């Protein structure tokens, strides 16, 4: 029953829709649902960890006819991590989000968004993946524009149009896949594509997928919507976006390129080049920004480059690095935006020129915030560090030396940017900004709300620390995922049952 997490979020979102405008009930229910959802994810994770790949054929139609849901280690890990992020954001928004936004469907859509993500992680069907993608992007549209402020709207225009473009391309890709194979089940498609004579067409199709997912995951030269929009919504929304949305694109790329288009060398080379340029673009962008949200936005782009780099090199080690980095990045990026949200609540601005004095006034919170910040930089042995070892090792193996150079450069730029941020926001003396009339400042909030904002940061920081210090476990996990991804025969056999590798 591996669709349970999805169904649960579905029901959660639906129930929340009934409590339209009853924000207190919604807050309570959403946190409760998120906790249960996390429980289900843990349960599923353990189940798969014990038993290996698990399958649910929806409607009892055997693959490749029905829609198969496949819980492999990668899928359930992503479900688990997204549940954690989801819980954190749910709590954080209960504390920080303005009432008006909560009255207009924030929580139901948050749960639908998480449902979409988890569905995408579990589905074994390419068209179903498209549908999940659409759930995610429409939810993100709504969350992004909720409140309809000027900035939000301007950002949303770019976000919406480019994401719709990506969806359209995705659809074309699916059309081609169906045209070539007559099937939609990814495992089945994998076999059929493998037997196809006209390799060029397969390659072109994979190129379309590269661009479709590339837009969604914000890689060069398709990342433009991200810096334009991610800093515009409330930080709780940015947090879930930053942590999970772009990662969905990465997930899809990892899945499709390992399973369906495994080992297309040309695309691999392209990805390596794109990865380098993504790192560069993100890093350079972050260097210049003064708005914390924008800084983090560009850093997302930069680190997406690391993820793509691993996929481009396409060795077990590289994929392992990507997976490890992915897990780390989801937690840390979610946390970062919550941190920026907390800073915003405390100071009323995100402009680092105006910020300051955090360390003086909130030493404990500052040190707490240092954890995600320096994890992001990858100061060893914090969580961001380990994956880089794999990526560099893999780069040495595949002799992508220039890529290693870019990884080093990207890490350096991140270091510099975060150190500057630290020195500006935390060390520098703050300016007393005039208090704005609207909205509550942190100091004016109730104790409960304050805790609701701080607790998720503590939670995610603790997980970050665990990823860093307990790296061994995460490495074993990443190793298993990477082995499964690089040799999809297990996946294919599990999905198609006794049907063997011949068409």
């Amino acid at each position, binding site marked *: 029953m591996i669709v349970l997490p999805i169904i649960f979020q579905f029901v959660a979102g639906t129930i929340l829709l009934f409590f339209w405008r009853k924000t207190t009930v919604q807050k309570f229910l959403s946190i409760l649902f998120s906790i249960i959802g996390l429980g289900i994810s843990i349960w599923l994770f353990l189940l798969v960890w014990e038993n290996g790949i698990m399958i649910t054929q929806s409607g009892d139609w055997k693959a490749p006819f029905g829609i198969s849901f496949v819980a492999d280690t990668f899928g359930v890990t992503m479900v688990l991590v997204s549940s954690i992020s989801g819980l954190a954001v749910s709590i954080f928004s209960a504390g920080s989000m303005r009432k008006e936004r909560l009255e207009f469907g924030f929580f139901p859509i948050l749960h639908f968004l998480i449902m979409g993500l988890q569905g995408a992680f579990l589905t074994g069907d390419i068209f179903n993946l498209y*549908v999940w993608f659409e759930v995610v992007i429409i939810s993100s549209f709504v969350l992004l*524009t909720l409140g309809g402020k*000027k900035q939000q709207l301007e950002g949303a*225009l770019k976000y919406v149009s480019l994401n719709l*473009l990506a969806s359209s391309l995705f659809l074309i890709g699916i059309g081609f896949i169906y045209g070539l194979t007559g099937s939609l089940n990814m495992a089945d498609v994998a076999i059929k594509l493998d037997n196809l004579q006209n390799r060029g067409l397969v390659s072109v199709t994979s190129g379309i997928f590269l661009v479709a997912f590339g837009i969604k995951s914000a890689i060069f030269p398709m990342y433009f919507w991200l810096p334009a929009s991610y800093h*515009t919504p409330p930080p709780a929304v940015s947090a879930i976006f930053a942590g999970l949305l772009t990662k969905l694109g990465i997930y899809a790329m990892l899945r499709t390129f390992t399973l369906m288009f495994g080992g297309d060398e040309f695309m691999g080379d392209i990805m390596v080049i794109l990865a380098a340029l993504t790192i560069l673009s993100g890093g350079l962008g972050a260097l210049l*920004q003064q708005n914390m949200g924008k800084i983090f936005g560009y850093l997302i782009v930069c680190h997406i480059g690391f993820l793509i780099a691993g996929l481009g090199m396409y060795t077990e080690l590289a994929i392992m690095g990507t997976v490890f980095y992915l897990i780390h990045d989801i937690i840390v990026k979610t946390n970062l935006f919550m941190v920026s949200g907390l800073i915003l609540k405390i100071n009323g601005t995100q402009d680092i020129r105006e910020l300051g004095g955090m360390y003086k006034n909130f030493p404990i919170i500052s040190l707490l915030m240092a954890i995600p910040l320096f994890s992001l930089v990858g100061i060893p042995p914090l969580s961001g560090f380990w994956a880089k070892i794999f990526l560099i090792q893999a780069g040495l193996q595949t002799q992508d030396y220039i890529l290693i150079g870019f990884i080093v450069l990207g890490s350096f730029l991140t270091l510099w940017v975060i150190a500057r941020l630290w020195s500006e926001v935390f060390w520098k003396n703050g300016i007393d900004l005039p208090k704005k009339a609207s909205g509550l400042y942190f100091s004016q909030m109730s104790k409960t709300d304050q805790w609701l904002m701080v607790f998720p940061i503590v939670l995610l920081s603790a997980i970050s620390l665990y990823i860093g210090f307990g790296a061994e476990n995460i490495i074993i996990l990443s190793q298993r995922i990477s082995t499964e991804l690089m040799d999809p025969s297990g996946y294919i056999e599990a999905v198609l049952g006794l049907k063997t590798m011949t068409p």
Partner: protein
Amino acid sequence: MEILLIIIIGLLHAGGLYMLLRRSMFKMIIGLILLGNGANLLIFLLGRLVKGHPPVIEDGMKVFADIYADPVPQALVLTAIVIGFGLQSFAIILIKRVYNVLHTDDLDELNSTDEEI
């Protein structure tokens, strides 16, 4: 006939892209709609064309006696159309809202989120 449809698909894509490249946000959405239509038609075409035989089993029969059109692309396109409707209506309302708040249709005037470095 397929060739003609393919030309239309190409034209829908070309037209969609061209509109997407305009400065008016209204045209941008027209472009997206055209692209969506193009993608739908493409999927439909790639299921191969069969004339006059809808995939409906005749009364009294249990299976198809005659040829029938491939139902899968139809179902896919149907899903895509409905999803497209959701997305497009949101996008359309978005431009309305943008205009209400910002009083312009010119996308070039809507880049403050990119400008302030």
